[in-house]
């Protein structure tokens, strides 16, 4: 009984993804048929969206979109990766440094500052969308990747909170004895704290990669040219013109976007689940 229920539930959750894969392997003339499996599986849809030998891309401004080239997986993946890497380094490093300050240093006003930090977690991105757009526009950053990675270098309240909790769980004595041996604060942080915090840092890094990979609103607001698009924005753009894009291509593009995070998930499943569980229980 339990087993049957579990099997049905698991199937329901995975079926949409299997269906996506199946449609992506169908030749265009088979797309409208409800067969679960393609009769003549082909990679032609993948060839259309992978972006080898693509024509030059056009531009987009708000809703006034100028028709242009196709979905270019390789280009969009490169753009997304650039943003992921540039922001990831800053997010992990800055969050860890600030978290260390809140966890280990005694200074007047620390409690108040940390309380403000926690409170800011409540503020949703849409509230900040307009003013940050104005600021980035003033800086001339619209149409560049900078609005999408520079803010990460200030850490995030949530990650600071997460890492602080983890740091508090590490015994102080380790650092105290190191400091007696002449180790500096930074040395303690860099050589003792960070290596001991790898599990927590992995959680932060993983969720950050996922968030960037997934983000639509940020790129939609800040990027204007098709050759700067991220994967999520590129797929949305392809779909917004879907009158002329066959579904096997849309599903092939979707599959290609999901694949890297799926691989990441398979390799880091434990980190994922531990991360979600701890954030939920300590929140």
């Amino acid at each position, binding site marked *: 009984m339990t*087993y049957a229920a579990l099997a049905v*539930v698991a199937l329901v*959750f*995975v079926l*949409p993804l299997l269906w996506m894969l199946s449609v992506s392997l169908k030749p265009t003339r088979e797309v409208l048929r409800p067969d679960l499996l393609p009769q003549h599986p082909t990679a032609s849809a993948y060839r259309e969206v992978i972006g080898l030998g693509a024509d030059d891309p056009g531009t987009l401004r708000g809703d006034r979109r100028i028709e242009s080239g196709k979905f270019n997986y390789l280009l969009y993946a490169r753009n997304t990766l650039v943003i992921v890497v540039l922001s990831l380094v800053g997010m992990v490093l800055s969050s860890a440094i600030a978290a260390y300050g809140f966890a280990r240093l005694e*200074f*007047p006003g620390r409690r108040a500052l940390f309380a403000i930090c926690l409170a800011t977690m409540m503020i949703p991105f849409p509230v900040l969308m307009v003013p940050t757009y104005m600021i980035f526009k003033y800086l001339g950053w619209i149409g560049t990747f900078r609005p999408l990675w520079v803010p990460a270098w200030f850490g995030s*309240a949530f990650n600071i909170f997460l890492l602080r909790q983890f740091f508090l769980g590490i015994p102080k004595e380790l650092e105290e004895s190191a400091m007696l041996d002449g180790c500096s604060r930074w040395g303690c942080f860099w050589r003792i704290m960070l290596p001991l915090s790898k599990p927590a840092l992995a959680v932060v890094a993983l969720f950050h990669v996922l968030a960037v990979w*997934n983000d639509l609103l940020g790129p939609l607001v800040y990027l204007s040219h098709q050759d700067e698009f991220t994967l999520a924005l590129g797929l949305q753009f392809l779909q917004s013109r879907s009158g002329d894009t066959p579904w096997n291509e849309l599903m092939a593009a*979707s599959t290609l976007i999901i694949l890297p995070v799926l691989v990441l998930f398979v390799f880091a499943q434990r980190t994922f689940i531990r991360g979600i569980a701890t954030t939920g229980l300590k929140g």
Partner: protein
Amino acid sequence: MRSGRQSLLTGLLWTAPWWLGFLLLLAGPMALSLYISFCDYPLLQPPVFVGGANYKQLVGDPVFHKAVANTVVYAALAIPLGTVFAVLLAVLLNRRVRGQALFRACVFVPTIVPLVAAGLVWMWLLNPEYGLLNTGLRALGLDQPPLWLESPRWAMVSLILVSLWFLGSPVMIYLAGLQEIPEELYEAATLDGASATRRFWHVTLPCLSPVILFNVVIGIITAWQVFALPFVMWRTRPGPDRATYFYTMYLFDNAFNYLKMGYASAMAWVQLLIILALTALVFVVSRRTVHYRGV
């Protein structure tokens, strides 16, 4: 012994990434947004102070009313439904059976799927003519299955259905919560002759209630920000009767399509106040119902 002044300096230096970000990317922009919300600001011309005109206009704006109503309906349906489903799924996935890890992975996998891709996949699954769901419903003998995304009545249902597909994170949080419940409580309840159902109501649910509260608060905050899924699924057409036009979508359109930055900022502030008020309300209500185990 170091002086207070020096320790303050060291502390501020270490926490600098956070408070610099707070000033530059949060407090500053929010102050700016508050000012702009009292201005007429069509982006290309400088802002002109107009007092509370934007807020007054919101009160009488039928599209704003529609967007608020849709968001309220969505939150009011998706959050309770999602909570019930997630708790039940967690209880199910907590059973010790062979392949438990695989079953858990299956439920969790959709949460890592980018929303744009998920929106596309579900658009095709729910396609009235060629979609897998209606093909199945027709095979079961239903002659006229719903039009899903294209019907004003079913569009919201479709979106809630898709939101249930993303339950993986709350399920994992509840699973972790279930594992924190001491085995003795269940043993004691069984000794007292409590049935499985009674054990669920009187042991599992009370012990899980703080976790449920956390998820409900997160649910409220995210429901008011729903954007990517409906944006992808109904962008090419505005959606039947704006049935799935949500708060953040209208905010986005005001800001970046109609270039009404002042009006959009007023919407943003109203949104923030609504979220804060709802969260406060949840905490007040939870005082009576949430049970914190003495630790």
